[in-house]
C-alpha cells in the first residue's frame, strides 16, 4: 500500500535480535520467580523499582544504543525495540528511568555538550540517575509552543529560570529535570523560535515541587515551580533557540513505541489465564482472540515503523501518529471488552490477579489517550499528513 502519509513498508526484525530477546526473557523469568517484580498494567507510567532499574543498568539495558564511552552498548534501534517490547509486555517497573532512557538520553546525545553527556549518561545507563522532562504548563498542554517558562538574564546578566511545569512524570524521583523554556520572547509569527531546553538539578535553590495525585490516589506526576533559579549558560542543551526542533524530533519515537498499545497487556494475559483455568465461554475466547488480533496487527505496524526510523530514511511522523491513536484507543477499548465478558469486581486488593489488573487499567484508562499528545491533536497531524489541512 502506498498512500501519501500512510506508508508502512514490510519489515521483519532480523534474526540477530533473537539472542537479546532470549536473554531478556530469561532475566525476566528469573526475576518473576524471585519476586523481583510483579506485572502491572501501565507499569511504565506508574511502577518503579530502583533495584530493578539498577539490574537492567548492570546488564547494559538502559541506554542500550548509546556510545560505549557514555556507558551504552552501541546496539541498534532494532535491538532497543526488542528490549522495550519484552519489558513492556511483561509489565515491568521501569517508570523511574523511562523518560531518561527513551527521550532525554537521545536528546543529550544529539544536541548536548560533551560535558553534559559525560556527566549524566553513564549514571543513567547504570540505573542510578533519573531525569525528568518538564514540558507542559498549566496554560500550555496541547499547544506546547505557548509555554511561558522563561530563561532570561536578570539585571546582573545572570540567567534566571522562572515558570511552572505540570504533569512532570517522576520528577520527585529524579535528580535532574530538563526544562523547555523561552530564551527569547514569544513572537506570534515565529511561535516555534526562541525556545530552548535547559538542564537543572532538582535540588537547586528556587525549585519547589508538589505532587499531583491521580484519581486512584497515586503519585506519578508533579507540578514543578521555578523561582529565579540560577542557571549557567552551559546548562542549556545545544543551541539556544533550537528547543522546538529538539523535542519534535523525539516525538516520532515517543509515539510509535510498544508502550502505546501494551499498557493493558497484563490484563489480557490474565484473561487468557482465567479461560485456561475455568474453561471459558465462547464470548471470552472470542474477546481474547479479538484483542490479540488487534495487538498482533499493532505490533506489526510498529515494527515496520522502527525499520523506517532505523534506516534513517524518513521520520514517519504520520505513521507514528496513526499507531499512537490506534494503539491507545485499543488500550481503552480492551478494558471495556474484558469487562463485558468476565465476571469480575475490579479491585487493587483482590486476590484474583485479573481483578487487580482490571482495576489498574480502569484507573489509568483516562490517561492513555491524553499522554504523549492527545489523540484529537494526533488525528489533526494525520489529517495534515493526508493533505486535508
Amino acid at each position, binding site marked *: 500500500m502506498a*498512500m501519501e502519509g500512510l506508508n*508502512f513498508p*514490510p519489515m521483519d526484525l532480523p534474526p540477530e535480535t533473537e539472542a537479546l530477546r532470549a536473554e531478556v*526473557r530469561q532475566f525476566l523469568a528469573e526475576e518473576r520467580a524471585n519476586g523481583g517484580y510483579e506485572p502491572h498494567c501501565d507499569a511504565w507510567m506508574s511502577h518503579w523499582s530502583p533495584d530493578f532499574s539498577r539490574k537492567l543498568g548492570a546488564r547494559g539495558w538502559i541506554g542500550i544504543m548509546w556510545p560505549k564511552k557514555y556507558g551504552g552498548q552501541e546496539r541498534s534501534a532494532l535491538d532497543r525495540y526488542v528490549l522495550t517490547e519484552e519489558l513492556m*509486555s511483561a509489565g515491568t517497573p521501569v517508570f523511574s528511568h523511562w523518560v531518561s532512557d527513551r527521550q532525554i538520553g537521545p536528546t543529550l546525545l544529539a544536541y548536548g555538550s560533551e560535558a553534559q553527556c559525560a556527566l549524566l549518561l553513564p549514571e543513567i545507563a547504570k540505573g542510578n540517575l533519573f531525569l525528568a522532562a518538564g514540558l507542559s504548563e498549566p496554560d500550555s498542554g496541547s499547544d506546547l509552543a505557548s509555554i511561558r517558562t522563561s530563561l532570561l538574564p536578570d539585571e546582573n546578566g545572570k540567567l534566571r529560570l522562572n515558570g511552572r511545569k505540570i504533569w512532570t512524570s517522576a520528577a520527585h524521583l529524579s535528580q535532574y529535570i530538563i526544562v523547555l523554556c523561552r530564551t527569547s520572547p514569544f513572537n506570534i509569527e515565529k511561535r516555534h523560535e526562541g525556545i530552548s531546553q535547559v538542564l537543572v538539578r532538582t535540588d537547586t535553590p528556587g525549585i519547589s515541587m508538589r505532587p499531583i495525585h491521580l484519581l486512584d490516589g497515586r503519585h506519578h506526576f508533579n507540578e514543578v515551580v521555578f523561582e529565579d533559579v540560577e542557571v549557567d549558560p552551559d546548562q542549556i542543551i545545544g543551541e539556544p533557540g533550537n528547543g522546538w526542533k529538539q523535542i519534535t524530533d523525539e516525538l516520532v519515537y515517543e509515539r510509535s513505541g510498544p508502550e502505546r498499545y501494551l499498557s493493558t497487556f497484563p490484563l489480557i494475559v490474565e484473561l487468557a489465564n482465567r479461560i485456561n483455568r475455568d474453561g471459558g465461554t465462547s464470548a471470552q475466547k472470542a474477546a481474547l*482472540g*479479538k484483542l*490479540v488480533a488487534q495487538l498482533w496487527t499493532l505490533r506489526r505496524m510498529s515494527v515496520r515503523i522502527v525499520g523506517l526510523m532505523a534506516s534513517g530514511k524518513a521520520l514517519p511522523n504520520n505513521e507514528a501518529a496513526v499507531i499512537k491513536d490506534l494503539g491507545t484507543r485499543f488500550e481503552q477499548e480492551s478494558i471495556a471488552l474484558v469487562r463485558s465478558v468476565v465476571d469480575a469486581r475490579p479491585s487493587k486488593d483482590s486476590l484474583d490477579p485479573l481483578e487487580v489488573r482490571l482495576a489498574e487499567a480502569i484507573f489509568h484508562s483516562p490517561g492513555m489517550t491524553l499522554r504523549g499528545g492527545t489523540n484529537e491533536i494526533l488525528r489533526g497531524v494525520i489529517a495534515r499528513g*493526508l493533505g*486535508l489541512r
Partner: protein
Amino acid sequence: MSDIRDMLVETSEKLFADLSTAEVINASEQGVWAAQLWTALEEAGLTLAAVPEDLGGAGGTLGDAFAVVRVAGRYAAPVPVAETVLAGWALAGSGLKVPSGPLAIAPVAAGDAIEIAKAGESWTVSGTARHVPWARHADHIVVVGDGAAAAVPRGDCRIEEGANMAGEPNDLVTFDKVRVDAGAAGPAGEGIGPDSLWVMGALGRAVLMSGGLERAFEHTVRYTSERVQFGRALSKFQAVQQEIAIMAGEVAAADVAADAAVAAAEAGDPTYQVAAAKARVGQAASRIAGSSHQLHGAMGFTHEYPLQHNTRRLWVWRDEFGGEEEWAEKLGAWLAAAGGDEVWPFISGSRAGLAA
C-alpha cells in the same frame, strides 16, 4: 517488496483500472460475464501466479498471487481472481495440473462437504456446495474433499443460480456422482484439505478486503475534498478530519495484517495468523464501510456512485470463510488452552528464550 512483485502490482493496477470499470461491474451485476477482463488477466499471467510452471502457472510465490488478489479487491473486480488462486493452490498442491480459464472453488459454506471417491482409474465427485462464488461462469469447479481434490468441468455440474449482497454470482452446485478423469483429480497433497481451504479462503478474503477498503478510503478523501457545503470543502471540517484520521488507521492496520498473514502462509501453517488477520481486517472493513458512507452523504448510498462497488463487497467478504467472531474465538481458544504466557510469544512471533 521484490521487483517481480512490484511489477505484478503495477501491471495489475493498470489492467484492472482499464477493464474493471464501473460499467463492467454494473453489467456483471446484470449477468454479463466480464470476458475481456478475465482474458486480459490470463494473458498477463496474473491468474495462476503461484502455480508452478509445469502445472500451468507462472511459477511465482503465494505472495505474488495475493498481491494480484489485493488489486482485484481494490477494483471490485467481478471475476474469480481469489477463487482461482485458491483452486490453483489446491490442485498444484496435490500435484495436479491447473486448467486455464476462470475457476471456482468449493465447498465454501460452513457445514458443506463434498465426497471425492476413487472409482477405478478415475474419481467420482458427489455432494452439494452452497453459495459457490462464480460457479456459473467458471470453466471448472475445483473441489476439495477429505483426502482428495478434483477439477470438475462446469458442464458436468447442476447449477442453481443465486447472488450475494454485492450482486455477485453465488450458486448452488450439485455434483451427481460426477466422473472425473485421473488427470483432473487425485489424492490431496500435504496440507490440502477442507480445513486448510477454510484458512486459505479466509486469507483470500482478508486480502481482498484490505484492497477494497483502501479504495473506499481513497474515494472518501477525494469526495470530501471536492464536496463543498457551508462555503468550504467537507475535508476542512474538524469532525470530518477526525473521522478520516481514524479511517486511515484502519486502512493501515488492514493492509499490515493481511500482508503479515500472507507472509505467514508462505512460511508454513498460517492458521492463527490468518485468524488474527481475518478478525482484524473484518473489523476494519466494517468501520471503513460505515464511515465512508457517512462521509459521502446521500451520494454514496446510490447505485450510480462507485463507492457501493467496494462497500457491498466488504459486507460480503467479511462474512465469507468465517466472520470475525468465529476466527477470534478460534484464536482465543487456542491461546487460552496454552495459557497466558503463550500470548506474547504469538504476538511477537518468537519463542526465543522460552521452553520449546
